[in-house]
């Protein structure tokens, strides 16, 4: 969920941009030229995911996949998601210039947190059930946290946003389950077909 231009207060915008800048700096540290194509792939996947709609009961939701991006990229999720969102703003006018920082933070921070919490589970040598649990939890929690952060961004802008913020979080609930299942199945696919993708330690040491 992108927050559009003109809604958030300057304090929230500046705070978001500052934390994102720090996150991107960490993500870019020690990043080798050779890795840029594979990170670009994940940015593109994040972008294209937002165009893929899957049914969830009576409605259809689009994929977010920030949990999967986090599992694969670690801290490099920050630059990857930043670029993906910048292109969404330029091509579709989703989000915008001043909100780029906040929107990146809302998506990328959960990705990194999930990487720290569940990243162990998707490396080699994990049992099948632990693996599925870690991947599911990652997809699930990344969306949950993103929803909470979007709500929080609105709430911090003004008390009056509280009901809207609550509804935003609630709207993320069905998406969480879809993302959890999809992330788990997708990680299983990768583990079977191309385990190196999950192994590559993209996180900075």
């Amino acid at each position, binding site marked *: 969920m992108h927050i559009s231009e003109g809604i958030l207060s300057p304090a929230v915008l500046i705070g978001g941009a500052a934390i994102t800048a720090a996150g991107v700096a960490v993500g870019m540290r020690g990043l080798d030229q050779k890795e840029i194509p594979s990170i670009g792939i994940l940015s593109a996947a994040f972008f294209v995911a937002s165009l893929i709609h899957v049914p969830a009961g009576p409605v259809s939701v689009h994929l977010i996949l920030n949990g999967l991006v986090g599992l694969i990229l670690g801290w490099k999720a920050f630059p990857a998601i930043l670029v993906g969102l910048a292109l969404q703003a330029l091509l579709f006018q989703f989000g915008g210039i001043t909100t780029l920082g906040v929107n990146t933070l809302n998506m990328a921070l959960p990705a990194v947190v999930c990487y720290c919490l569940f990243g162990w589970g998707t490396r080699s040598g994990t049992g099948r059930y632990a693996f599925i649990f870690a991947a599911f939890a990652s997809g699930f929690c990344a969306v949950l946290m993103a929803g909470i952060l979007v709500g929080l961004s609105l709430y911090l802008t003004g008390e009056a946003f509280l009901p809207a913020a609550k509804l935003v979080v609630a709207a993320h609930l069905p998406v969480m389950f879809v993302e959890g299942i999809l992330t788990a199945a997708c990680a*299983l*696919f990768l583990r*079977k*077909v*191309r385990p190196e993708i999950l192994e590559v330690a993209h996180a900075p040491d």
Partner: protein
Amino acid sequence: MEKNDLIIHLTDICFSYPGSPPALDNLDLKLYKGDRIGLMGPNGSGKTSLFHIIMGLLKPSAGTIEIFNHPTVKEKDFRKVREKIGLLFQDADDQLFSPTVVEDVAFGPLNLGKSQDEAMDIARNTLNFLGLAGFEDRITYKLSGGEKKLVSLATVLAMEPEVLLLDEPTGGLDDRTKAALKDVLSNLDLSYILISHEIDFLADITNAIYTMEDGKILFDQELHVHQHVHAHPHGTYTHEHK
């Protein structure tokens, strides 16, 4: 021919991709039961687009499509068509997306409402038929070019279609795999349309060759047979001569 032998009947089909000149331009086509048609034509003449129109993956801007004597217009009509007509994509990579071969072959039957066990049985039988026994648990992504083509064909045949549309099935294949594919196709009791740039291959396994040019099919062709000088190295690398 009998009217109810007419399987595919396209009239005056026009189609263009957004912002491009027409890819198909007042095209007519009839396929009768038992026909085996070869289709050649320069790159970009609209061969692939024609197949996608028949399957309802692209919507024509004008013209009518009748399949099995039913006008076919809406997505709902095409769902039925796709149960009876199988399409082999030009690029085998476009066709396979499951991790293992057997899952990919069973995908179609599952969508047709078969149970898990039935679908698995169908998948195994189809693989056996194509000489791919033992491939069940291979990772589709890691198959060689030739194996991918054959597995793609298996995914299509598993749906037990009555007609096949084959889009350059021999592209990038070595002569051995080509010969294997030729065998399979001539043993199938199906009608098909086959796109290829290789006239020798078409001449062997089709009973009519049409050419396409600028979005139209040209029918005013005759099949000529004539001598052709041909060079190749002899040795371990086999090459077929008829």
